[in-house]
């Protein structure tokens, strides 16, 4: 596996790096949490295994295809120009083939496992690759909404597989992820504002300014916390876990207020990190609740 700064040498390592293992792993974790939230047969090894493999392949496939599509702008941005696609270490054709193959296997497996689950997985792939990357990313800063919807699909897919239907709790969990994603993407777009400008990618900071972007981060963080708490209540989460979720949400609210009214780069970074910890903790609580 490669680190962010080193360049992978083997073919496998190169393609592995294109799957963004950490990000894909986090999305897979939300899918598993969504599945467990349905209070189904949690220790059904076959279902867990098939969910994990199909979801990971679909996510990894869409990520590789994004890299293939964005290779020209990635090469212009300092943050991404070390990617193997930007450096030309793998051929465009190979990346397209591998991304497509992995996507087909992942989505196909998901449909075979459960058609509705497969549909949600496909929707996530479609919103990410086609709507977000190919259609909107270079046209409008609002593309992140569609990227967010795509990121919210794994948790909904997991719950759909566990429950056999789409319900309001699943939608609330997905909304929580959707509203949490801007905390990441907008913080990145502020930190690497020049990179995005050089690559010609419209962002919130370049379109609406830093103050509006910070306010958006703050508001979306608070709404994400509210959605997660609502989902927790819906799941029937233990009162103690809800208290803990409330405390963590209060921390998020505090940082959101700070970033809106007394913004500094440090607070910005703090909210970015805290929001990740918050979401991880929320997922762990959902899983602990069922176990």
């Amino acid at each position: 596996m490669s680190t962010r700064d080193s360049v992978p040498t083997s073919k496998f390592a190169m393609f592995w790096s294109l799957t963004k293992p950490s990000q894909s792993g986090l999305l897979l974790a939300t899918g598993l949490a969504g599945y467990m939230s349905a209070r189904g047969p949690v220790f059904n090894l076959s279902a867990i295994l098939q969910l994990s493999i199909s979801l990971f392949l679909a996510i990894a496939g869409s990520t590789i295809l994004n890299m293939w599509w964005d290779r020209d702008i990635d090469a212009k941005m300092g943050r991404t120009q070390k990617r193997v696609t930007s450096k030309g270490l793998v051929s465009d054709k190979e990346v397209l083939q591998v991304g497509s193959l992995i996507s087909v296997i992942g989505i196909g497996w998901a449909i075979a496992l459960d058609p509705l689950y497969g549909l949600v997985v496909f929707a996530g792939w479609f919103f990410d690759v086609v709507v977000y990357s190919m259609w909107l990313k270079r046209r409008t800063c609002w593309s992140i909404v569609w990227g967010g919807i795509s990121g919210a699909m794994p948790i909904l897919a997991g719950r759909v597989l566990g429950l056999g239907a789409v319900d309001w709790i699943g939608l609330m969990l997905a909304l929580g992820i959707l509203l949490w994603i801007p905390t990441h993407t907008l913080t990145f777009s502020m930190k690497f504002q020049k990179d995005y400008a050089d690559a010609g990618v419209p962002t919130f900071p370049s379109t609406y300014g830093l103050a509006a972007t910070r306010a958006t981060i703050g508001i979306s963080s608070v709404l994400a916390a509210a959605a997660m708490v609502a989902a927790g209540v819906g799941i029937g989460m233990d009162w103690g876990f809800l208290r803990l979720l409330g405390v963590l949400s209060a921390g998020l609210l505090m940082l959101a207020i700070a970033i809106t009214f007394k913004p500094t780069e440090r607070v910005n970074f703090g909210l970015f990190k805290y929001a990740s910890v918050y979401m991880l903790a929320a997922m762990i609580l959902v899983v602990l609740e069922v176990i």
Partner: protein
Amino acid sequence: MKLSSLNRTLLLFTVLLASYQVSAGIDGFTALPITAYTIAFGVILIAALLIFILGIDVLDSPIVVIVSTIIPLSLAAGLVWQHLASLRTWYLVFTIIGFLAVTLTRSIQIQNKLPVIILAITHGIAGMTIFLLPIIIASQGETKPLFALVGVGGALIGVGGLLLSFLKTGRPIVSRDTIMKFFPAMLFLTTALFVAGFKFG
């Protein structure tokens, strides 16, 4: 000042202990103690998490004086509500007034000694309550002996809160570097004593 690996580990354990206490350690109490303890351990949890994420220098923020007052005030309010029924209302009034007074005197420019006096009185009363009450009721047999650990934790957090508060007021009792170096260990030890006291007391 960079956090050492040991301090990072201690902060992580503090977060876990406080999380346990909020989620499972205070079940079965009535509404007010649950609220008070949730606030106290919630502040400890978030403080430890923010120090872990942003570094120990986050303690330089002016808001620290107010935050470091919330912990002893809410803990003391919970303890009094549970174990000193006759003083419940009076102590709740003191808690609210104390918090508002500290917040107010920290938020506006006051040249005289009033902010320090308010801070010392509020911390002093809340600190002594957390220190003495658990030890007294444990020694009287109202609770198990180990409940006295809450009092020991109270003494520690009282000292820590005062050190931090006086550092922020510009009249440090101990140097800033010393406080910063030992703060994670003190926070962990305090939290561990509280959790153990509530669990086994």
